[in-house]
């Protein structure tokens, strides 16, 4: 699901992002803080490595036994009074949600941030169905005012500076907030949203975990907006990917510790809520109906192939906070629902490789993402796997294929390779001024922004042949 920027290419989007100095300021502010806090949180968690291993093992176990836990979850959630729905793909999922809303004669729907909601195109589906949609997460609220999509999975509006937000609020909120005072802006948003919370007919949330042995769903927020979105309305709808399952509450807690530290560097999130079925008789509050929409959308296909480990992802965002590419171009340039390294692996699954083949290629393979991933997803290996598929399905650019073909041909014939080097070096040196080459045919990708050191007049191999191990003296 790619609402914006489908026509333009990754390179174009990246180029535009690089040209926007405010974007860079905004990204740096957020990700630098996130990095520092995460480092401190991990340092203060002596069992962190062991916890990562356990987190990865829990997810692997669930993925290997997904059918078992799905059936268990459905049974327990149903027993608790919730209605469980199954959606094969994004369209089906969005359709189920809108039909529940229509059946409930909903006029206003409050939504608590969920990336899965974005993945299945829920904001659009609700808008198209003529239902008033209110995003209740502060950042999502900003995004909604700006008519954009999230650019980060934890801080959806991180690409917007405080000044941007003040401007948006100035247009849509009364009275105008003070741009230098974030507290006044928050208060202004609270005033606008509070009214909506109480008048909504349906509240929609995602789930960080689905607990199989109790049938509960778990949400984690820092603003309490999930609770406010899901408690007052008559109907609560949860949309969740099938990989969110965990066997028990204990397992959810183990993953929660990893999630929070990796995402925000905190020890706990302000609000962690387990919802188990609708309001029971005697309950003071809660929805009358609870619906849980379990979404596949490509996930069951991943179970059976090399991208299986990607299903471990707990959506903490640490990989993007530490990614040199993400930190330059931001989330929108990726063009899919999920940005950064995890998005570069997931988007080709969701949108197809032809639409997103740049993503696994636009990576320096420096490996910092998998170094910080709390569930040890081998992101580099998975990105390489996409490159192999891209190569095998002839999607690699023709000139690159040809260049590599020639290189490989020579490299497999050492005599030819060494002869080629001997002949090429003096030619390359002709382009040099002093010790540097400032421009040379076929090298503009390099020399437009950096100089190229002039190569040696004679290769190591030919010098070594002549002078031996001591080299020329």
């Amino acid at each position, binding site marked *: 699901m790619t609402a914006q920027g489908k026509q333009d290419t990754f390179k174009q989007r990246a180029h535009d992002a690089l040209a926007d100095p405010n974007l860079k300021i905004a990204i740096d502010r957020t990700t630098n803080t996130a990095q520092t806090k995460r480092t401190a949180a991990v340092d203060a968690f002596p069992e962190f490595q062991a916890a990562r291993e356990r987190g990865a093992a829990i997810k692997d176990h669930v993925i290997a036994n997904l059918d078992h836990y799905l059936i268990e979850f459905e049974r327990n959630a149903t027993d608790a009074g919730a209605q469980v729905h199954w959606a094969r793909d994004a369209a089906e999922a969005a359709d189920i949600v809108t039909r529940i809303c229509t059946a409930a004669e909903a006029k206003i729907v409050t939504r608590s941030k969920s990336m899965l909601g974005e993945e299945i195109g829920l904001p659009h589906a609700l808008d198209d169905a003529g239902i008033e949609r209110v995003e209740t997460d502060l950042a999502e609220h900003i995004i909604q005012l700006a008519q954009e999509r999230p650019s980060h999975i934890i801080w959806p509006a991180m690409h917007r500076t405080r000044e941007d937000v003040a401007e948006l609020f100035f247009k849509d909120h009364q009275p105008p907030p003070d741009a230098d005072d974030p507290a006044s802006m928050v208060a202004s948003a609270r005033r606008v949203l509070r009214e909506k919370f109480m008048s909504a007919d349906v509240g929609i949330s995602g789930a960080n975990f689905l607990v199989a042995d109790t049938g509960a769903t778990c949400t984690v927020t820092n603003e309490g907006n999930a609770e406010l979105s899901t408690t007052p309305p008559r109907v609560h709808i949860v949309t969740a990917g099938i990989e969110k399952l965990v066997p028990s509450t204990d397992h959810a807690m183990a993953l929660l510790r990893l999630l929070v530290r990796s995402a925000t560097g905190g020890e706990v999130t302000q609000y962690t809520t387990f919802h188990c079925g609708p309001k029971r008789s005697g309950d003071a509050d809660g929805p009358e109906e609870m619906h849980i929409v379990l979404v596949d959308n490509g996930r069951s296909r991943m179970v059976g192939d090399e991208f299986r480990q990607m299903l471990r992802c707990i959506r903490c965002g640490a990989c993007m906070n530490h990614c040199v590419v993400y930190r330059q171009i931001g989330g929108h340039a990726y063009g899919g629902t999920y940005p950064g390294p995890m998005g570069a692996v997931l988007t080709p699954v969701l949108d197809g490789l032809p639409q997103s083949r740049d993503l696994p290629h636009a990576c320096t*393979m*420096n490996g910092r993402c998998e170094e910080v991933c709390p569930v040890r997803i081998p992101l580099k290996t998975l990105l390489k796997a996409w490159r192999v598929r891209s190569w095998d399905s002839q999607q690699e650019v023709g000139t690159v294929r040809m260049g590599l073909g020639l290189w490989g041909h020579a490299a497999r014939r050492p005599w030819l390779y060494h002869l080629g080097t001997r002949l090429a070096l003096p030619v390359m040196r002709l382009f040099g001024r002093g*010790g540097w080459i400032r421009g040379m045919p076929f090298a503009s990708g390099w020399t437009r922004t950096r100089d190229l050191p002039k190569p040696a007049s004679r290769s190591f191999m030919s010098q070594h042949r002549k002078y031996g191990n001591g080299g020329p003296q």
Partner: protein
Amino acid sequence: MIENPRVGLFVTCLVDAMRPQIGFATIKLLEQAGCVVEVPRRQTCCGQPAGNSGDKAGAAALAKQVIAAFEGFDYVVGPSGSCIGQIRSYPKLFADPGWRRRAEDLAAKSYEILSFLHDVRGWSPTDVRLEASATYHDSCSGLRELGVQAQPRALLERVEGLELVPLEGANVCCGFGGTFCVKYPDISTAILSEKTANIAATGADILLAGDLGCLMNMAGRLHREGAATRCFHTVEVLAGMSDGPAIGEEDK
């Protein structure tokens, strides 16, 4: 520990063409550490360009060539974390058990030069002087695939007169990434500019790293920006061979 191991030098295609001195410095250090060094002539490239582009067959073909050229040695050593990282990953390229076994054997005895000198040979420099201040960039493959981090610093500490200045974000990628830097030059340059700003902020005379690809990238940008920082491969300093031209300086 083998007294005088036979070591096959993996030269790397960049060192071969761009800066042979790194190869000779590596030999010198290996010999100081008691190794008998040979340079097999049947070597060309480790296959990274193909491997990183998804051309598994092309990468496997080059892997076979490297395996055949080097399997007779006690060790394979190269002045590049990324090429040695590629050699260590050869087993993944083969389904055939025979080749896989040979790839595993080779991977197990392949080392990046600084970790080899420090961890395997317990060598450290004596009588090397350099009156300068230097900062060190951790190239990603060496750092994360091979755990090269403490070794170069420990060895550089032993160079008399050399002051090591910490580099902010030393473990952050410089934006090279092999073919990445020419396929996505805009993004690469944006990443690189942050790196060169950090390098400039150290005020060090010299930038050191363990991989020529990253060094050429950083040196090329520093020069374009007009910075006076001189760039060397760490082995050049350790071998006492940093009195000549730095990367990009006109040779005499």
